[in-house]
């Protein structure tokens, strides 16, 4: 009794019933007969390789058809990255030569300027040129005024006064007064500093707070009046009228390389501070740009969003969208000046970026997410495989069925047709047609359909031959005589009685065929003659490997696609093998 239980458990589900003792002998002994389908399934699932193949296939289908839905990216969604380009932006020169400004150019021409320089170098306080006598007065460090006949005719200076507003000329009086007060201010600050250090050293011994330097925390300010307007000048060299800055004084000349860029004083000052500090990098936020370019800034933030879809081609951000820019400072070779490079960002396809958390398998040439591309590629490859096989099977079964059933001259005719199609070299023909479609610029979607039709039409001969062979042998069997005797119509005799008997063979053939169709499609796409952008296919993903640089450097472009392809085809073959064994146990020993 118990030994039967074991066998029952395998075949009879009802043994789960705990009351099995109550079964009559008849029930217990009853042999559960499996339907032919279940028998095949049982045999199939016993084959380990076939099960492995089946699970790979299930994975591939889930990956391709459901993965595409789950992926946050689209099939042909481009990604961009902002590349930093160092552009020469400005040049900073420390002024080491005297500059001259004449009040009266007739009395202070360039020869006089040259004489002035000589006098300054020699330390002479007076010189004469072409009958005029000039007196040189030092008004500050590297700042002299030149007088002739009691009135000042010009000045020589190294600190440069520039206007805060673009393109506005400054009058001589203004410059003179500004420089003068600047020099005075500098002197004052210096004195103060000297006092401070003196005070500090004095105070070092004492502990009283009173010795704390009385230096005012407020910046030192000097005022001067020109043309009835009162200006104040601060320690940093800024010249203010009331609260607005009109000019500033600096030893450094900052020139933008592009003539249309106006450099604000704020920027220049920060730049000079950085140079003075000996640093080679600084960032600067241009507030005026932030105000202006709200729109661009918004666009920038949208790019960061994952779902952002941008049709715009990557182009340089001309609007200098980022108000904050990074600058690098480099001393030029002769040490005369500094070259300021602005790091400008430009948008490009995020091509060949390595796998990251955002793109698990990196991105391809056009900055498309590789994993998503693989999913959609699988969808196309599998779909092409199935549709082509369906076309082949329909054609093959009809032609083979007719030929096999009717025999005679019809058979002969169809078989010669099969011979012809067998003989046509399909791969070259597909290549030629692919190249022709390239030339005609066939639209990719339509091209996909043509490709499937071509593959299907070129491939039906094998199936026709198989079906015919099967039918020839089946036709002679008794059950066919019986159908004839019953007066069943020819059509249903072929399609209801003959074809179902061919189906096992057909299924095996189709499963194996699927693999080879997928390989053919992939090969074509690899050669660039199959599926075209925007559609992805595993073949055209690997296509990039034609570029040797990709082959050597970017494994993630082609190895995953190739592996998926290999696994899929292998799985189809394994399942096909398993099915063959399951359908036809005679082959097994």
């Amino acid at each position, binding site marked *: 009794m118990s030994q039967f239980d074991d066998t029952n458990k395998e075949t009879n589900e009802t043994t789960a019933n705990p009351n099995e003792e109550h079964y009559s002998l008849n029930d217990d002994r009853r042999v559960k007969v499996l339907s032919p389908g279940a028998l095949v399934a049982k045999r199939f699932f016993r084959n380990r*390789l076939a099960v492995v193949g089946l699970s790979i296939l299930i994975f591939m289908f889930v990956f391709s058809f459901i993965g595409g839905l789950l992926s946050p990216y689209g099939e042909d969604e481009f990604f961009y990255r902002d590349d930093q380009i160092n552009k020469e932006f400005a040049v900073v020169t420390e002024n080491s030569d005297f500059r001259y400004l004449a009040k009266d150019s007739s009395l202070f021409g360039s020869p006089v300027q040259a004489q002035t320089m000589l006098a300054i170098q020699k330390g002479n306080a007076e010189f004469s040129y072409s009958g005029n006598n000039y007196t040189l007065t030092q008004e500050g460090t590297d700042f002299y005024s030149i007088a002739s006949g009691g009135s000042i005719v010009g000045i020589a200076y190294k600190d440069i006064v520039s206007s805060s507003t673009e393109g506005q000329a400054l009058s001589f009086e203004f410059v003179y007064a500004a420089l003068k007060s600047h020099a005075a201010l500098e002197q004052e600050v210096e004195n103060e500093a000297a006092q401070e250090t003196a005070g500090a050293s004095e105070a070092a011994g004492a502990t009283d707070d009173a010795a704390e330097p009385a230096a005012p925390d407020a910046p030192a300010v000097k005022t001067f009046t020109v043309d009835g307007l009162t200006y104040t000048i601060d320690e940093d060299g800024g010249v203010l009228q009331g609260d607005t800055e009109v000019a500033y004084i600096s030893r450094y000349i900052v020139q933008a390389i592009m003539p249309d860029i106006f450099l604000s004083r704020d920027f220049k000052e920060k730049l000079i501070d950085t140079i003075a500090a000996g640093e080679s990098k600084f960032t600067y936020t241009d507030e005026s740009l932030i105000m202006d370019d709200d729109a661009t800034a918004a666009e920038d933030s949208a790019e960061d969003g994952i779902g952002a879809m941008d049709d715009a081609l990557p182009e340089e951000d001309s609007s200098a969208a980022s108000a904050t820019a990074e600058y690098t400072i480099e001393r030029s070779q002769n040490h005369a000046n500094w070259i300021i490079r602005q790091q400008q960002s430009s948008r490009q396809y995020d091509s060949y970026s390595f796998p990251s958390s955002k793109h698990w398998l990196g991105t391809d040439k056009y900055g498309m997410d590789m994993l998503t591309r693989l999913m959609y590629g699988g969808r196309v490859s599998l779909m092409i495989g199935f549709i082509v096989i369906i076309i082949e099977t329909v054609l093959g079964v009809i032609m083979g069925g007719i030929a096999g059933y009717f025999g005679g001259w019809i058979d002969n005719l169809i078989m*010669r047709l099969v*011979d*012809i199609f*067998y*003989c*046509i*070299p399909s*791969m*070259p*023909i597909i*290549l*030629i*047609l692919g*190249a*022709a479609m390239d*030339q*005609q610029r066939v639209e990719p979607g339509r091209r996909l359909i043509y490709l499937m039709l071509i593959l299907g039409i070129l491939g039906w001969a094998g199936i026709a031959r198989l079906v015919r062979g099967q039918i020839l042998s089946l036709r002679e069997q008794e059950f066919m005589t019986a159908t004839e005797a019953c007066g069943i119509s020819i059509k249903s005799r072929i399609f209801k009685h003959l074809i179902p008997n061919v189906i096992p063979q057909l299924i095996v053939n189709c499963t194996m065929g699927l*693999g080879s169709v997928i*390989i053919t499609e*992939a*090969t074509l796409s*690899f*050669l660039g*003659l199959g599926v075209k952008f925007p559609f992805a296919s595993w*073949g055209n993903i*690997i296509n990039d*490997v034609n570029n*040797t640089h990709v*082959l*050597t450097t970017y*494994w993630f472009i*082609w*190895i995953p696609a*190739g592996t998926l*392809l*290999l696994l899929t*085809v*292998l799985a*189809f*073959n*394994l399942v096909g*093998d398993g099915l063959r064994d399951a359908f036809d146990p005679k*082959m097994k*020993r």
Partner: protein
Amino acid sequence: MRKYIVKRILISIVILFFVGFIIYALMRCLPTSFIESMARQKAMQPGSKSFDEWMEQLKAMYNMDKNIIPGYFAWLGTALRGEFGDSWLYTVPVLDKFNDCVWLSFVMGGIAFVLEILIAVPLGVIAATKQYSRADYTISIIALAGISLPTFFFASLLKLIFSVKLGWFDLFGLVGRNYNHLSAWGQFLDKANHLVLPIVTLVVISVGSLMRYTRTNMLEVLNADYIRTARAKGLSERKVVYHHAFRNTLIPLVTIIGGSLPGLFSGALITETLFAIPGIGYVSYQAMVGGDIPFSMFYLVFLSVLTLLGNLISDILYAVVDPRVRIA
């Protein structure tokens, strides 16, 4: 037997006629701008005829002015005389170009073929004699993997490993950079070196199906009654397998191997293209993609002839090798 062969040859000729026609029709339907661009070029020359006149002349020259059917017969007429015209892409007679490159393909294919047989047949026999053993599973999986491997992927892998990482072979081409400075022996070695990867690719890709074929046929034979008889007779397993079973397995093997002999001339289109080996496959790939009708036409018909020849040879061999077929 002779009658059978003659009949087969006649049928083959008829098939070839129609295959040729289909290929010709396809070719004619292709939008080839080659003639146009050639005519435009010629019309540009000083003192030349107009574009239209050149167009007419060139079309007449290439039998493109006729309808498809008369055009086909015209092509057939010249082809039967062994004239396939000048290749448009290579600007030499088609047969010259073919003769230049077919032997390379043949050598490559031949070596690969021999290696394939040497690997596939013993492994297939082992797999069949030890069915369901670990060796059988391994061999079956390897064979299936070989069949499933896309040529281009495998070739790329080989290139990555052996050319890029190990640096043993060049990535492309048949000859190295300093080929011209080498001695005759050095030149031979250089070429051989460049052929290693393509041949490995060919072998690995195609060895699987022969292996499986051997295994299936061997299994079939091992299940036959006379093998049981031989075993019952007390023969050693070795003798049973290699004396009785293997000889009978050879029948389908010889048939299929003989049938694929003509295919050695067809070249390996994909492999040669991948490795830029200037064999017939690569040359004709470029001709086909470049819209070179005379060369493509010739190559396609040539392939068809090879296929038919292969079928014919395997059918005849089948009858020759297996006496049972002849009696029936």
